[in-house]
């Protein structure tokens, strides 16, 4: 399919293509209800609830009033529908804002201000500097006589540098006025989402140059959501509009992320569902047997002698309805509610505010806070994330002379200043390259202060440094650069720019000195891209040493070089360059090849070292989080040496004796394979020693390893706690995240730039730093923070609390539902297995909605340990990471507790209220109050810190229970009229309740006390220490070491067979033998693990034992 676009044709093509109305909305006013319901019912849990609710409409089988299920169900649906509607409304508002933005569009040959949504395909749109491009345009004219304009494409691809766009040759040189009347046709493909491709043809109609088809490429386009920069105006014809733009097409709805806790809850729900089905089948069969034997004799029940076959189904269905409360309908609402509160706590946290920029931390994704507490791997970007991304020129080496080595700052090095003032040619040449060899645009403000707009931070740092050394880059006038050196104005004409690409790793400019007419080639680039091209005879050893030395200090190095060109040589090359530049196929490769022809025989001028300072608190953050058992991987596009140096300086790896770096390198498959095997071998051996081993890999070797030796590399990834990956591309970053995720590790990716977006989106948790490289990463991320050091708090405080709270809340929800359901099941055994509900509809509904959900909701305020304690003992995060608080075995504990409490409540109730007191409604209320009392004490027992709100909710709820029931009892028409008044007057009732509470809580309390005192977990110990006010900070590392040695051996040997199994632990505690989650038995690394498992788990285990 192709589309033909008639430029500036007001009547044509108006209706052929959509207008420029952007719509991110999911719903319209009309389809909201059906579509939303359909979406909600595509979830299994909702289908289940709907089925139950529908079954309840059948009065023959429903044990209670259908309202007891329909009420909560409708409430839940209304809540999530309202949330969806609200989100959609906000999207509508932001769409509206974009749609109603005013733009200049040519209509009937006149420029008019219209709303952005009224742009049609074929319209000519005019943009001024810093305008956002409203739709995809083909450039027709710019203010620049060369037909160039600059755009910032950050919103599109995350690259923050300015890109140049040129007008197609056909429209070159058309007058400003004529542009309003231009006519023509563009043949272009149907909309797609490829932002790097646009293959189209343009033909202008007479009276304009009616030459042949003029080919168009992506270079001739302005894509939606880019910004026009450094160009006074530009105009273009709209080719794709609305949701059909390249951006609109690639806009996808991000997959909702599911946390490990959610997955576990789903799993447990499934288990409960299976349990429920089993119960229903067993009770159904038992019920039918009872009916056919016993019930026939019970004449007062009047069972008909003959019944249709489907009667057999009635009893099982009744039990299904009776047991449907086993899966608590309220759990989803409660979880959504507390999750959004966790997110709000992050937003509100005053300790995570970047004081410099006043940026607060923000949780964009409100649903995944628990995962923060379960992070096992952090993959971090380097530049801008660990470092400040403020490049400062620190040192240099010019012709073998080192400047800045003494005081660490070349700009204040007297020797260099002296050299500048005396006019040393080498130094001046060096400074000239610093000032000229770049694509920086100086902008002089009204006050005369010059600011620089640069594509890269390095270039800006160099230009600034040159300026402070009296080589001021003053002005860029077209192609002419003006440089003020000590008051002397030098002009250079830029003839060609040999752009930087990541393959070439260098950039060059060809300039002509306006004074002498000499032509120079000035280059700067990575050492390996420059030094080998030195002219024969020049010694480059000092420079390599300088590079080495600077890299050791963690500085970024750039080599500067120059060469004087002959006129002829240049002219000859220039032709080739132009030709290559106009090639349609393989242009980049051709251009690179042509550049190579010029870039040789360099006169190496020197090495500039630029410092990228570490952010505040980065080393502390990393060491704290490493203590918490989190593994760090650094993924950077920077070069190996710099990456390693940064890694060393921020505690990423320990220096030599303790730490060891294993290099994984190689250019060919064989080399990489050998290297990988060697690294793996070392890794396996050293794993038994308490040593910090990290592997270092570069992008090239990584590519090969991922492609051909994925298995071995995966094993390496699992074994190593630290890795440094340098020279990696954004997609490789995402691949590494994917690799770790496939091993079942929880990953957190943190980055600040557009190149980290893919990794951030891929990871379980994406954290963006709202930094200097723009907000691109922060916008794509689940959490955005101002500084790297907030990560500690985000994980240790917010993540940990969220995990603990959700673990409690979800299991408690199941506990209370199971409790009441077990009582119903027990009751069915004394009611002829006929499926009678002991509780009435009002009680059942209120039990789930009021009595039990409010006290537990305040558990969002519960803190098991104070924030300070957690910060001092980050190791405690282990409990969350390993999922110690929510797993099948803790759940089994809650299940057992529900069973025990149900037995206590049921047995005591039916034995105290016997004979003349066994009235149905009374017995039901006694049992219900027993449940309420028990659950209040259970919540109280599981709460670690009581705030006033918790007291209010727990005890207030108990009071409210009586208040509500007394009110209901006062209504004459209600089923339970006067019941509660009668009960409250009876001493028997109160003695029974006290007995239930004592019998129910006594053993649980004793067990908890025993665990707390004699089998205390690390959390318990810290709680005790905290409460005793003793030294929480551990002091006695050294003297306790010897004593603990023999202690350590025994538990280890016992615990080893259990290693790497999912944690099964008894109620209320955590056995010290259990360890972290394994990569699962089905993984293909069993061969390696037979030998490495024990050793690797030793390391992870040893911090627990």
């Amino acid at each position, binding site marked *: 399919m192709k589309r033909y676009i008639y430029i500036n044709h007001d009547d044509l093509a108006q209706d052929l293509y959509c207008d420029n109305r952007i719509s991110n909305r999911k719903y319209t006013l009309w389809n909201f209800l059906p579509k939303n319901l359909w979406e909600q019912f595509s979830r299994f849990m909702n289908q289940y609830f709907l089925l139950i609710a529908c079954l309840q409409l059948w009065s023959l089988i429903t044990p209670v009033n259908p309202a007891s299920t329909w009420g909560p169900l409708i409430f839940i649906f209304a809540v999530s529908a309202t949330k969806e509607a609200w989100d959609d409304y906000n999207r509508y508002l932001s769409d509206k804002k974009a749609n109603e933005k005013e733009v200049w569009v040519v209509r009937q040959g006149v420029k008019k201000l219209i709303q952005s949504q009224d742009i049609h395909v074929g319209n000519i749109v005019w943009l001024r500097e810093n305008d956002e491009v409203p739709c995809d345009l083909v450039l027709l004219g710019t203010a620049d006589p060369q037909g160039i304009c600059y755009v910032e494409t950050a919103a599109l691809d995350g690259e923050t540098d300015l890109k140049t766009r040129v007008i197609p040759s056909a429209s070159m040189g058309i007058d400003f006025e004529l542009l309003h009347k231009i006519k023509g046709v563009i043949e272009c493909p149907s909309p797609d989402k490829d932002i790097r491709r646009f293959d189209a043809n343009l033909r202008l109609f007479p009276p304009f140059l009616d030459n042949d088809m003029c080919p168009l490429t992506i270079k001739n386009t302005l894509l939606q959501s880019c910004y026009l920069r450094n160009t006074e105006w530009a105009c273009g014809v709209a080719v794709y509009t609305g949701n059909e733009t390249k951006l609109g097409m690639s806009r996808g709805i991000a997959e909702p992320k599911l946390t490990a806790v959610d997955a576990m809850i789903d799993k447990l729900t499934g288990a409960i569902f299976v349990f429920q089905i089993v119960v229903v089948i067993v009770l159904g069969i038992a019920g039918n047997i009872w009916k056919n034997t016993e019930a026939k004799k019970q004449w007062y029940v009047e069972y008909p002698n003959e019944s249709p076959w489907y009667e057999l189904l009635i009893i099982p269905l009744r039990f299904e309805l009776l047991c449907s409360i086993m899966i608590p309908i309220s759990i989803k609402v409660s979880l959504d509610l507390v999750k959004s509160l966790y997110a709000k706590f992050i937003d509100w946290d005053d300790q995570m505010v970047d004081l410099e920029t006043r940026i607060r931390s923000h949780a964009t994704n409100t649903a995944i806070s628990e995962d923060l507490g379960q992070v096992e791997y952090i993959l971090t970007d380097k530049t801008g994330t660990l470092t400040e991304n403020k490049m400062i020129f620190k040192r240099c080496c010019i012709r073998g002379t080192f400047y800045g080595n003494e005081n660490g700052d070349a700009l204040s090095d007297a020797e260099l200043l002296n050299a500048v003032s005396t006019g040393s040619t080498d130094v001046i040449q060096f400074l000239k390259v610093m000032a000229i060899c770049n694509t920086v645009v100086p902008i002089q403000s009204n006050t005369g202060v010059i600011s620089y707009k640069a594509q890269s931070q390095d270039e800006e740092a160099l230009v600034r440094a040159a300026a402070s050394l009296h080589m001021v880059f003053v002005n860029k006038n077209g192609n002419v650069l003006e440089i003020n050196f000590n008051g002397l104005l030098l002009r250079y004409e830029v003839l060609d720019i040999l752009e930087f690409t990541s393959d070439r790793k260098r950039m060059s400019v060809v300039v002509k000195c306006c004074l002498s007419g000499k032509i120079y080639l000035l280059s700067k680039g990575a050492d390996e891209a420059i030094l080998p091209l030195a002219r024969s005879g020049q010694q480059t050893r000092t420079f390599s040493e300088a590079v080495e030395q600077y890299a050791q200090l963690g500085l970024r190095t750039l080599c500067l070089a120059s060469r004087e060109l002959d006129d002829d040589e240049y002219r000859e090359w220039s032709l080739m360059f132009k030709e290559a530049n106009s090639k349609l196929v393989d242009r980049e490769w051709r251009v690179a090849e042509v550049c190579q022809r010029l870039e040789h025989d360099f006169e190496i001028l020197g090495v500039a070292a630029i410092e990228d300072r570490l952010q505040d608190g980065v080393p502390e953050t990393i060491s704290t989080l490493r203590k918490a058992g989190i593994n760090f991987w650094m993924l950077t596009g920077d070069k190996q040496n710099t990456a390693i140096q940064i890694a060393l300086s921020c505690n990423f790896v320990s220096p030599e004796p303790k730490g060891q770096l294993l290099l994984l390198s190689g250019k060919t498959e064989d080399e990489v394979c050998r290297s990988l095997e060697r690294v793996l071998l070392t890794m396996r051996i050293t794993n038994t020693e308490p040593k910090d081993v990290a592997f270092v890999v570069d992008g090239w070797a990584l590519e090969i390893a991922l492609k051909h030796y994925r298995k071995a590399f995966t094993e390496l990834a699992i074994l190593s706690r630290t890795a440094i990956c340098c020279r990696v591309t954004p997609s490789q970053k995402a691949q590494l995240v994917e690799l770790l995720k496939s091993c079942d590790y929880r990953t957190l990716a943190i980055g600040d730039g557009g190149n980290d977006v893919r990794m951030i989106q891929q990871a379980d948790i994406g954290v963006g730093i709202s930094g200097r490289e723009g907000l691109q990463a922060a916008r794509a991320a689940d959490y955005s923070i101002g500084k790297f050091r907030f990560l500690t708090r985000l994980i240790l405080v917010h993540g940990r609390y969220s995990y603990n709270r959700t673990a409690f809340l979800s299991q408690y929800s199941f506990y209370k539902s199971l409790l009441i359901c077990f009582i119903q099941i027990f009751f069915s055994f004394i009611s002829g297995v006929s499926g009678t509900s002991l509780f009435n509809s009002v009680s059942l509904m209120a039990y789930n909605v009021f009595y039990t959900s409010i006290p537990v909701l305040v558990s969002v305020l519960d803190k098991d340990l104070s924030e300070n304690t957690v910060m001092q003992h980050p190791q405690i995060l282990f409990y969350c990471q390993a999922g110690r608080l929510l797993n099948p075995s803790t759940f089994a504990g809650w299940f057992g507790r529900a069973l025990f409490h149900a037995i206590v409540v049921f047995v005591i109730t039916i*034995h105290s209220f016997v004979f003349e007191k066994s009235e149905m409604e009374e017995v039901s209320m006694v049992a219900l109050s027993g449940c309420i009392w028990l659950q209040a004490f259970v919540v109280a027992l599981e709460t670690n810190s009581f705030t006033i709100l918790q007291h209010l909710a727990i005890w207030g709820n108990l009071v409210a229970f009586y208040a509500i029931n007394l009110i209901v009892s006062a209504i004459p028409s209600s089923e339970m009229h006067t019941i509660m008044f009668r009960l409250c007057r009876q001493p028997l009732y109160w003695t029974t309740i006290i007995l239930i509470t004592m019998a129910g809580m006594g053993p649980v309390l004793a067990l908890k006390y025993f665990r707390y005192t004699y089998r205390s977990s690390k959390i318990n110990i810290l709680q005790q220490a905290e409460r005793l006010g003793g030294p929480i900070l551990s002091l006695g590392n050294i003297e306790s070491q010897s004593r603990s040695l023999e202690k350590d051996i025994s538990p280890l040997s016992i615990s080893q067979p259990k290693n790497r199994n999912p944690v099964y632990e008894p109620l209320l505690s955590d056995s010290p033998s259990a360890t972290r989650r394994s990569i699962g038995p089905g993984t293909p690394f069993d061969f390696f693990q037979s030998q490495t498992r024990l050793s690797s788990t030793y390391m992870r285990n040893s911090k627990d034992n």
Partner: protein
Amino acid sequence: MNSNSPSTSAGGPGSADSTAPRRNSKRPKYSRFTQQELPACKPILTPKWVVEIIDRYETDCVPLDSRNDKVGFIQSPQDKTCHRNLTVPKRMKRPIYVYYQLDNFYQNHRRYVKSRSDQQLRNPGDEGDTSACEPEDTAHGMPIVPCGLIAWSLFNDTYNFTRNDQLVTINKTGISWKSDRDHKFGKNVYPRNFQNNTLVGGAHLVANKSLSEQEDLIVWMRTAALPTFRKLYGKIEVDLQAGDVINVELQNNYNTYSFDGKKKLVLSTTSWLGGKNDFLGIAYLVVGGLCFFLSLVFTIIYLVKPRKLGDPSYLSWNRNPGGH
């Protein structure tokens, strides 16, 4: 259950109050306080026993020749009068409650417990509201009042007590809940079309008494949650002395023979906790004993092997610092 018996003094002489306001009287102002005549509770720390007489009669009241076909006997129209002698073991203070106890009778069966129409019972206008009453909803095309299985199967054994050939009156008013009489069973709802079907379930109702006065029905319709239950039959308002022999003349009409249900006649006094029930006492003793035992065990463990709370050296990462 041992209990003190709360008893209230009758209060001061009422005539004193009427004289108090007279101002010109020479008599000093009467005050219960100054005269130490405040009403007082006089606890006596003696156990008060609940005395209970239980008489199981469902087999004994079937003549010997009918015992192999009890169901046939109960369904036959012959005379089912039966005489029982009860001996009072201990002095029983009034009021003495007379219960009948049924066993293996599932009033809580789902089919049974729902088979009633509260609307109909309350409101004379709603007599057609019998949808829940299936299968005892209509007879001869007319709605039954009161409808449903519960009402239909109303217990119909009757008891008459004589002591030393003197009739002991049984007070059958006030045996149901007051709230039921006032709110659940209408004052102007009369039984209609009741027990008119071919199959007669239980007792008939007096046609010209409103439902709120039919206390046996009201008691019966408070369904029991357990298959063994007692329902109040009446109250004996005189004290029975130890050794008294009470002759019961009962009409054994109700069919519990089809499902092997026991029938018992129970005479019982009450205490503050209600009737005779040992469970709570035993349960308290067991739970208390368990708590005592546990606390003893914990104390011993604590004394034998004390453990310092919150010792940081228990933290493993403090024990082997190089371990990770």
